[in-house]
């Protein structure tokens, strides 16, 4: 091989690899979707997942948005002071939170928590032959394992983000009223007056998409985990990394779609 080929070959290889992975993920998503509306339905598994994905992610999402809301208020105050626009703090905190930071930060935190745990759980099931055992017991692993997780994450993320948004705005309020000298009533009315329902709704749609991404990536990498403990470790890492990157990419696409005329 000449030097140019040597340089280009790995690029070509990884491009082909990437395209193949995209194809496999697309097939996996199509299979998952096709099982959502066909019986049997595993409601107990769905409820379990709603609890473990939604409820148990509340603390981490709440803390993340609380601190971010506070920091946001400080930044906007400092930035706004440069052109005497300190009064925009409440509305910018609210808009920034519900449109962007709430869904994206919650998505990333849930990617770390949930995509990892799904991939580790299903990966372990794969390497200990539990997934094969499911098949021999006439139970489709996609239906029994993937569908409840994907449906639960897609449904519960908007709720999680709505709570996170509120906590984030509250974080801004705390900072605004305690250290930036805002009047409590004025801060609240300023927040409410400028916030439009589409700001909130668009953020919740994003949240739903991110929930879907997190669960699909967790399940895909888990079910396709390599052999042994190393395989599971790799599956977990890949699930978190791919979910996080996809969340940021899809966030850009959705923002473009929602907010450019």
């Amino acid at each position: 091989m000449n030097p140019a080929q040597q340089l280009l070959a790995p690029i070509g290889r990884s491009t082909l690899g990437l395209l193949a992975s995209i194809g496999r993920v697309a097939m996996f998503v199509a299979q998952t979707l096709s099982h959502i509306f066909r019986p049997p339905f595993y409601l107990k598994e769905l409820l379990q997942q709603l609890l473990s994905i939604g409820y148990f992610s509340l603390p981490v999402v709440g803390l993340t948005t609380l601190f971010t809301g506070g920091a946001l208020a400080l930044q906007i105050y400092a930035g706004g002071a440069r052109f005497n626009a300190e009064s925009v703090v409440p509305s910018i905190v609210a808009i920034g939170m519900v449109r962007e930071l709430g869904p994206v930060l919650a998505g990333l935190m849930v990617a770390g928590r949930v995509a990892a745990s799904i991939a580790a759980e299903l990966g372990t099931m794969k390497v200990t032959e539990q997934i094969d055992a499911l098949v021999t017991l006439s139970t489709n692993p996609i239906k029994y394992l993937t569908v409840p997780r994907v449906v639960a994450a897609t449904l519960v993320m908007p709720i999680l983000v709505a709570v996170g948004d509120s906590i984030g705005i509250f974080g801004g309020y705390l900072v605004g009223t305690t250290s930036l000298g805002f009047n409590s009533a004025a801060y609240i009315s300023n927040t409410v007056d400028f916030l439009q329902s589409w700001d909130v709704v668009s953020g919740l749609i994003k949240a739903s998409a991110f929930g879907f991404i997190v669960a699909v990536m967790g399940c895909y990498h888990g079910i396709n985990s390599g052999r042994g403990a190393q395989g599971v470790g790799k599956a977990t890492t890949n699930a978190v990394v791919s979910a996080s990157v996809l969340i940021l990419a899809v966030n850009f696409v959705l923002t473009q779609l929602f907010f450019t005329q």
Partner: protein
Amino acid sequence: MIEFQDVHKSFGANHVLQGVNLKVAKGESMVIIGGSGTGKSVLIKTVLGLLIPESGTILVDGKVGGGADRDAFLARFGMLFQGGALFDSLSVWQNVAFRLMRGALKKPKEEARAIAIEKLRRVGLKEEIADHFPGELSGGMQKRVGLARAIAAEPEIIFFDEPTTGLDPIMSGVINELIREIVVEMGATAMTITHDMSSVRAIADKVAMLHDGRVQWTGPVGEMDSSGDPYLDQFINARAHGPIEAVR
């Protein structure tokens, strides 16, 4: 009846099955022996469609399995996995009754639990462990729970992958007897993988030895000692030296 016709299966450069031909008659207890890593587990998994052979045919009652009604096909089988493969998020009795609590064989919870406890007793486990989780049990107990799960729905064809590995001699005896009973009483067809020669003699109607990706020898268990096959002789007499290399 199960029939393997020239079955080939590779993983990358590792050619595990290289033309397996074997017939297992209905109601017969076939025991598969062979060194570790010769593809015994792989062979069983190809019947269930868990692994797809590159070439060759596997017939169950003269038909290629799976097809349109894969659920009905799989419902005829029970399988004990080499590692147990118990669902660690479910309790012991829910593992055993898994097939009885969903799908075509769905039964009321009380009834499913009662059947599970009965099957646990048959594999020598007490009712007390029914509400434990698999992680709380010893390896040998997990194996027996796996066995109870495999027989819970009284399948026609049962695969046992190393059912007595990790059990003490007395419990091995219990399990050997149980497998024999299942074949005789339920009229089930059984394929058992084992390294334990006392198991082979207790369980088998017929024996097949896998070596180098093929069936090296097969015949009735009574002819095993007088086969004159050097590979089989080395294996059943546990000799370190012979045609089978110790380094694999």
